[in-house]
């Protein structure tokens, strides 16, 4: 009942009553494409398998390096070379793609036939444009970040280095399986595989209990999501009889449902079909760190920064977005799934932003910003804008990787220092210019400064969608507010760490060098800051590899602005074109209309559903998109200004309006002190972890202990009791063996008397019956 009423408040508006304008056609087109792939299995070129194979090769080679005690940077170069090749292969896959999806099979995996039914899930890959889009930035970023890591991880050369790159390659492999898999089990394989790599890499510094705990948490929280995903897969199989994409998307039943959903009629779609999306959603929430399963991601920053950049910012965490985009047809036929996705995304975005505002660990701030941005993407998915989501995924991948890598450079250079109160003016330090500039680019993108940043375009697409989709205006306002917060906390970092008076305190890796979890093969003399001592600390400026990667990513972030304009007319940008020919092609009709105003908004059909009183597409009485430029652009600038005022350093020819003269004295402190418990709560992440611990972990642990005792005392006790009973009986009757002759005689006579009496009773009874 509770769930039912909850869902009623989250029910999805039918997106359009006119099938001709919407999904009927798309559905038909998709069905044809999928049908084609289904009828021509394994038709794709085999070299596509290279994309999957090369990372595996990298993994194996790195494992060998580890086994043979390699102590050079060869693992890194191997990895970079292989991943670059994989990227090139992906690129050629992109270029050679002819518009129809195809599958490539590596080998049979699950092949279970019984009667006319079958459960088939092969180790094969489904290539369509969504796949290509994802693989492009996955392999591309992976190559770049591997390059970055070759330098970043150099203090661990030896076993740890090999271990890092082995896991790195394994991650790329898993991600490739996740994105390219042609069935849900392959997706699941990749899904869990990236989870494993995430676990291994978060726990890279395995001597640190916090890292181990964080790794564990990440894996377990993800597993909760995975359970949802798994159940979703099972339900898909049960309901549609297949888990292969090509068959699934060509499934007639599914298209009947889609057509029904297009008219707003969900009553004829069976509950099973609707539940699939709800279950898959749980998986997506876990992997993409959405409320309430987001708690693992901030902790995941215990891993080395390249890992945070690649896995926990750019690629793995977008798997949830990919999942929903990939199964968009299934989400569409679920009445409540997409609204829930939208609202959860929105809530997550806001919640994470509020926490991010109050953190002092810059990597953690970035982590919360990742959660928040993922919230945007989910909101976009919920708002029927897969293009917006995918575009934001792409831009976010670039700028968030950039931000993380810049933060990582700082961390690397300042012996693990991440506290923004203890760093200041880093950009002005010798050798840190590139980091400062690229960080600025990243921050601008994240803040979404209007027109000059790609982050602005992608975020704008989402915000506009929120305002023009009937019933979702509230989401729009929340997201706008969040955008302001985002700008604030982003530039809070920038203003405190990168500009202002130069000051730096080394992190704890400097003081307790041995505690830093290196592999045991670690040659301490070779350590880049092994000769430092706490009395004189010199930051260790990034080398060429880090700088190169930062510059490339900064450029990529800026260049991806252009993606918004390529193919804008047909598909709302290049990303739209990539999404259009995939299962995620169910973009919102409103987006198209709001964007290009092909149709008079007043002519829009009234929307069926519980909401929709507001005229769609109007913000402040103007076109939604134009309005959004105004609102979000101004909001971003406002946020930056606020950050500058509260956190910015003093002066520098009037560029900064802040009053900070020392590393940790800023105007915000005074306000925070007077603001009551709120900043404390936000700093402590609203105590969500503690609440979880109190309501979930602790009770579970108590239950486990109770079970343990039940097992020990009750169950085993019963077994022991039954084992002991014969002895008890024996102990009871043993006195009869008194050794006295007469006693025996009496016992015999008495026993016989009793025996005969019992027999007599039995005979009387049976005789009576007879």
């Amino acid at each position, binding site marked *: 009942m509770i769930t039912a009423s909850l869902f009623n408040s989250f029910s999805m508006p039918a997106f359009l009553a006119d099938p001709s304008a919407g999904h009927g056609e798309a559905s038909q087109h998709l069905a044809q494409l999928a049908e084609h792939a289904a009828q021509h299995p394994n038709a794709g070129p085999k070299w596509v398998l290279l994309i999957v194979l090369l990372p595996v090769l990298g993994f194996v080679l790195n494992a060998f390096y580890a086994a043979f005690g390699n102590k050079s940077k060869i693992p890194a170069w191997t990895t970079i070379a292989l991943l670059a090749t994989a990227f090139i292969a992906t690129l050629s896959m992109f270029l050679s793609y002819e518009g129809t999806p195809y599958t490539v099979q590596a080998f049979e*995996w699950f092949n279970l036939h019984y009667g006319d039914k079958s*459960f088939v899930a092969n180790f094969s890959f489904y290539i369509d444009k969504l796949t290509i889009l994802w693989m492009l930035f996955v392999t591309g970023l992976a190559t770049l970040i591997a390059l970055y890591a070759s330098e970043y991880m150099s203090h661990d050369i030896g076993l740890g280095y090999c271990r890092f790159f082995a896991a790195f390659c394994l991650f790329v492999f898993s991600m490739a399986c996740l994105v390219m898999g042609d069935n849900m089990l392959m997706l699941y394989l990749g899904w869990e595989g990236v989870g494993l790599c995430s676990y291994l890499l978060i726990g890279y510094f395995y*001597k640190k209990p916090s890292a181990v705990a964080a790794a564990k948490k990440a894996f377990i929280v993800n597993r909760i999501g995975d359970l949802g995903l798994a159940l979703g897969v099972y339900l898909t199989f049960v309901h*549609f*009889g297949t888990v292969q994409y090509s068959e699934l998307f060509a499934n007639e039943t599914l298209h009947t449902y889609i057509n029904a959903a297009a008219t707003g009629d969900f009553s004829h779609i069976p509950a*099973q079909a609707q539940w699939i999306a709800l279950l898959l959603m749980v998986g997506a929430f876990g992997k993409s760190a959405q409320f309430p399963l987001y708690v693992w991601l901030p902790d995941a920053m215990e891993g080395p920064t390249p890992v945070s950049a690649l896995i926990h910012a750019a690629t793995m965490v977008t798997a949830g977005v990919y999942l929903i985009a990939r199964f968009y047809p299934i989400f569409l036929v679920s009445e409540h799934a997409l609204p829930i996705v939208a609202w959860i995304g929105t809530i997550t975005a806001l919640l994470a932003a509020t926490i991010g505002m109050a953190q002092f660990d810059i990597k953690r701030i970035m982590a919360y910003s990742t959660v928040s941005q993922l919230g945007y993407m989910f909101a976009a998915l919920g708002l029927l804008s897969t293009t917006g989501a995918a575009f934001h995924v792409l831009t976010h991948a670039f700028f968030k990787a950039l931000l993380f890598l810049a933060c990582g450079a700082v961390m690397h250079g300042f012996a693990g220092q991440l506290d923004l109160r203890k760093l200041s003016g880093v950009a002005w330090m010798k050798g840190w210019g590139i980091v400062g500039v690229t960080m600025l680019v990243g921050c601008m993108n994240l803040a979404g400064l209007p027109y000059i940043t790609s982050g602005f375009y992608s975020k704008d697409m989402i915000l506009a969608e929120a305002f023009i989709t009937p019933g979702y205006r509230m989401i729009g306002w929340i997201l706008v507010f969040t955008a302001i917060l985002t700008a604030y906390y982003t530039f809070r970092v920038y203003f405190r760490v990168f500009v202002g008076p130069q000051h730096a305190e080394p992190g704890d890796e400097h003081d307790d060098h041995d505690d830093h979890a290196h592999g045991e093969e670690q040659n301490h003399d070779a350590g880049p800051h092994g000769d430092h001592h706490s009395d004189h600390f010199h930051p260790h400026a990034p080398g060429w590899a880090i700088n190169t990667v930062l510059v490339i990513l900064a450029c990529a972030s800026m260049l991806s602005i252009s993606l918004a304009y390529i193919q804008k007319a047909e598909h709302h940008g290049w990303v739209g074109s990539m999404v259009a020919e995939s299962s995620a092609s169910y973009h919102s009709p409103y987006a198209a209309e709001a964007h290009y105003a092909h149709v008079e908004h007043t002519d829009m059909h009234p929307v069926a559903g519980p909401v929709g009183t507001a005229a769609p597409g109007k913000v402040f009485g103007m076109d939604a998109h134009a309005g959004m430029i105004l609102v979000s652009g101004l909001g971003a600038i406002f946020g930056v200004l606020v950050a500058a005022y509260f956190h910015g350093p003093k002066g520098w020819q009037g560029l900064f309006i802040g009053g900070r003269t020392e590393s940790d004295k800023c105007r915000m402190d005074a306000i925070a002190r007077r603001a009551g418990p709120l900043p404390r709560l936000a700093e402590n992440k609203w105590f969500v972890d503690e609440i979880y611990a109190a309501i979930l972990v602790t009770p579970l642990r108590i239950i486990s202990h109770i079970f*343990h005792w039940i097992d020990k005392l009750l*169950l085993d006790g019963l077994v022991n009791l039954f084992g002991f009973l014969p002895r008890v009986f024996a102990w009871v009757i043993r006195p009869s063996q008194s050794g006295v002759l007469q006693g025996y005689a009496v016992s015999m006579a008495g026993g016989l008397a009793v025996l005969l009496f019992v027999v007599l009773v039995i005979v009387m009874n049976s005789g009576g019956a007879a």
Partner: protein
Amino acid sequence: MSQQTVLLLALMIVPLLVALRIAFSKNPDTGYRPALITSWLLMIPAWKLIADFDFSQGATTQFAYSISWVESLGLNFSIGMDSVSLLLILLSVLLGPIVVMASKTAIVKDKRMYYAWLMVLQAAMVGVFAAQDLLLFYICFEFTLLPMFVLIRKFGSTNRVAASVKFFLYTFTGSMMTLAGMVYIVWFVAQPDQLGQWTLDIATLTQYASNMSMGEQTWVLLAMLAGFAVKVPLFPFHTWLPLAHTEAPTAGSVILAGVLLKLGTYGIYRFAIPLAPTAFFEYAPEIAVLSIIGIIYAGLICWVQTDIKKLVAYSSVSHLGFCVLGLAALNVTGFSGSILYMLSHGLSTGGLFLMIGFMYERYHTRDMNTVGGLASKMPIWATFMVFFAMASVGLPGLNGFPSEVLCLISAFQSDAAWSAAGEPGAWGSSLGPWFAVFAGTGMVIAAMYLLFMVGKICFGPLREPEDHHPHDELPTDLSMREIITLSPLAIGCILFGLQPTMLLDAISEPVNNTVVLVEQANGLESAPTRVDQMIEHADEHHESAATPDHHTPEGASHE
């Protein structure tokens, strides 16, 4: 007797002979080398058997050999294998050299006794799976108790006496009931209105057993489950297992987890289901509920263990719950998954026990509060540990996943209502999605306790017992011998994870047959399969047996 039959016999007899040879040797400390050589050499006939096995006829008993033993009891020494037996025999044979190698330095006293019994155990395990005669199966089934009893009692750790006795008595008590149930079936089939002949041939019994009334089947099922459920072990009959595992020597634990527990599930698959199909169908939900309780309950108990071996032992209880769940689903997915689980659990949990054994040899403690953070000192060990833990968690790509996913799907899809509604993936037995949901929490719990274990024992700062000093013979990290011991398991884990379809194909025919049998016995609509013919044949046979001409029991021709 074909060449392959000789090889199959060799798999049973050679270890016995070697055991005798070891037992009669003068020096009490011999045994390792002959046992090692034998167990490796046994791989040759084993692989030859695979090579010669006709997998397209997987349900047919191949390489069969039968010789009358006690004719009056109908007891034949009748062996042979279908593909399910073949795979389980292979697992047993594969574990042979592994456990021998794992024992080289662990066993320092009375090696003669140890390796002799290990070889006997090897023979008995092959016998269980090869038996085509009900009583022969039972004999081998029981006979495995004795070697294991000796291994635990003699070579176990501190609480070994209690552990060995509990292990023996608990399983023995259960299996006495199993014997009663089995004898009842045989007696039933020997009735003149059934076959009219006393036979212990499993295949023949299977054809008639479903004629038993519901009440009879229920009792028979209960009797058989009394033995098999204890062996599996199914909640709440599992309490012997943690104790036995904890106290057993490493090799004992490996074999216990790897093969002996599978005797229970194999028994359910091979006997309880085909011989009481209606009752099993009726009580499948109850059995499934027990297995799910086991999954969750044992999993949570694992989570609060400090004794690492106990943790893995409880994890076996939890894992085997999936296996039974798959069986209770009574469909192709479930049976396939369950058989896969039998095979794969042996590899991953066996691997975990080996890891623990190797650690125990170096530190002489299993307490995770005393020893931990070993990754920095023993990286290879830790790598394997994480690997096997992940295999055990059910990470896709490794062995745990295919079996687990199939078991869960099978429970999920066995919803009668859905089946009636024509859901394409549904199967009309009496579990349902909720079973999979609750069992699925086992996945999460498995991650919880295994990562808890890995986090404590492998990761974190290095903790060692205070009185720890390096082992005389063993290097700090794994020795080459130990790595070689582990590698087959690790390779097996990956192979099973990536190529389950190889196994699924191999077992598809027997599994299909069993499903059809269950369907027919319960009047379910059965998908047409290639085994229909066989069943028709069975029906004919049955009809002819029902005619008066066949009423004369052949056993009555005495004098």
